[in-house]
């Protein structure tokens, strides 16, 4: 496992550098925004002008920008992301409260787009250039052109307003008193439309990567050999062609995570799912820059962690990765 450890080490160094840059960028954002932490605190708790000056001194906000940056980094190191104006609470608490819902939404949407996308990709790639392939390729492109929030609205009109199958918004029935399995089913019913709106759009990417990989694999010698041996077509498609096209899909998982986090802002706002994305929209509406910055930092950490996990998975699956470094 020396090889995998080398990959992890290299990625960790890169991740630290990236997060440092994000923090510097976040500081600039905080400086550019109107008002500072004291204004936010006074707005949320009430206070007079004399107290404002005192607080500014106590919090070091009257010092030079460089000193303020030092203080900012120091508080981040202590996991203090500042105070939310709209919630009058520490940013980290608010963000962590909302994170599980977003993870549930993103995880389900990723599972949907990955499984359905690769399955349709196999259908398209099993006969490249066929009518079925062209139809699936165009169809997926059309789906990728749909804005998530509009797909959500159309699904709402169809399945909530017309058919009344699924609830219009929220993550669970309020004050229903449901417990255990009942509650899980209730949350599941609420999540069907948001997950479909978010997952169906990214399905196209997995389909296209799968299809492209398969189209390439068909030209490889080992596939030719398998055909020459007279293996049934079905076995060639699954065991030889699709299998070799699967690896790039793993990379897509990592690349997609940032886009999906962004997409969840609109979807969560549309379906009133109390997650990180809706929180971002609330932060913008309430001019709550510390909260918005906290969400950005936590999202960046999340994307870094997901990509790290994907890199490790990739190194485990593909023995060629990092082989040179460990030797």
């Amino acid at each position, binding site marked *: 496992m020396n090889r995998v450890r080398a990959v992890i080490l290299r990625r960790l160094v890169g991740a630290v550098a990236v997060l440092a840059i994000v923090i510097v960028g976040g500081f600039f954002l905080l400086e550019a*925004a109107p008002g500072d932490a004291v204004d936010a605190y006074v707005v949320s708790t009430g206070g007079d002008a004399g107290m404002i000056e005192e607080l500014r001194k106590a919090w070091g906000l009257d010092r030079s920008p460089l000193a303020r940056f030092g203080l900012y980094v120091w508080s981040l190191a202590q996991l203090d992301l500042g105070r939310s104006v709209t919630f009058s609470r520490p940013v980290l608490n608010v963000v962590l409260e909302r994170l599980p819902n977003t993870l549930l939404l993103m995880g389900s949407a990723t599972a949907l787009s990955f499984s359905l996308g690769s399955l349709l990709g196999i259908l398209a790639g099993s006969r490249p250039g066929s009518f079925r392939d062209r139809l699936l390729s165009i169809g997926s492109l059309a789906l990728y*052109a749909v804005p998530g929030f509009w797909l959500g*609205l159309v699904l709402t009109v169809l399945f909530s307003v017309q058919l009344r199958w699924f609830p219009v918004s929220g993550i669970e029935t309020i004050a229903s008193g449901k417990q255990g399995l009942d509650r899980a089913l209730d949350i599941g019913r609420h999540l069907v439309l948001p997950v479909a709106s978010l997952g169906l759009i990214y399905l196209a990417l997995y389909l296209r990567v799968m299809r492209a990989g398969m189209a390439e694999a068909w030209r490889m010698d080992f596939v030719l050999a398998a055909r020459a041996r007279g293996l049934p077509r079905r076995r060639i498609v699954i065991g030889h062609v699709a299998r070799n096209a699967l690896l790039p899909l793993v990379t897509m998982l990592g690349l997609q995570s940032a886009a999906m986090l962004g*997409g969840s802002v609109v979807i969560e706002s549309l379906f009133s799912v109390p997650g990180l994305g809706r929180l971002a929209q609330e932060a913008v509406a309430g001019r709550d820059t510390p909260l918005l910055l906290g969400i950005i930092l936590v999202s960046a950490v999340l994307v870094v962690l997901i990509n790290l996990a994907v890199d490790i998975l990739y190194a485990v699956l593909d023995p060629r990765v990092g082989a040179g470094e460990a030797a």
Partner: protein
Amino acid sequence: MTLRRFLHSPEALAGAAIVSALAVMALVAPLLFPADPLSIAGRPLTPPFQDWSLPLGTDRLGRDVLAGLFHGARTSLAVGLAAASAAIVAGSLVGTAAGFASGLTDDVLMRITDAFQTVPGFLLALAFVSVAGPSLATVVGAIALGAWTGPARIARAEILSIRERDFVAGARIVGMHPVEIALREVLPNALPPVLALSSVIVAGAILIEASLSFLGLGDPNRVTWGGMIAEGRAVLRSAPFLSIIPGIALVLSVLGVYLVSEGVVEASATRRSLS
């Protein structure tokens, strides 16, 4: 040859037709609908195909949906093109600088690119618009902020491969200034692959602009398709057409841009494999 292959693909032709229609709509909007599209044109909530002076009906405030559609095409196209141009110019410059400088500068620039790709682009756009205030220019800037990384990476990779070629070595021997070599010899040769990315960026920009407008963060003085969809949401049960019509326009436009881009890539790829 490339053009002929492009014209032989029905998908590419369909895409070109859609994009041309979009461009025409954007151009003739002020001629066909000279009145402010945000002003009241008729009875509120007129359904489509009832009143022939208002073919697609009116919204909650009695504004002409068709006029909104035409003027919205203008906003979408303008934002898409402006954001993509800004992203490509900025990305090419960063990529060129990184590719030429190598060493520490390259490392730092590429780490910054990594960082921008780590933060979800839409969150970045939200943050930028919320600090700078919603206007057409800030929306363009916000979208470009999340879109320049792709062109930067490709430009850098191209530069790295071109800078070692003979004609660059020749220019160096002749005594050209490094900046002149970068801008006159290398960059023009590195640009085509970067430009190939432009239509995908335009499509992405149109979608992000629509999402921002849907959340109420677009330019409040302009009609946008995203804003129209958000408007219609309030009467989704009684008048779903108000949200559905601008959505179809959005999907068609973005799909058209994608199809054109596919067609161009495919046509030039076949040419390369033939030569």
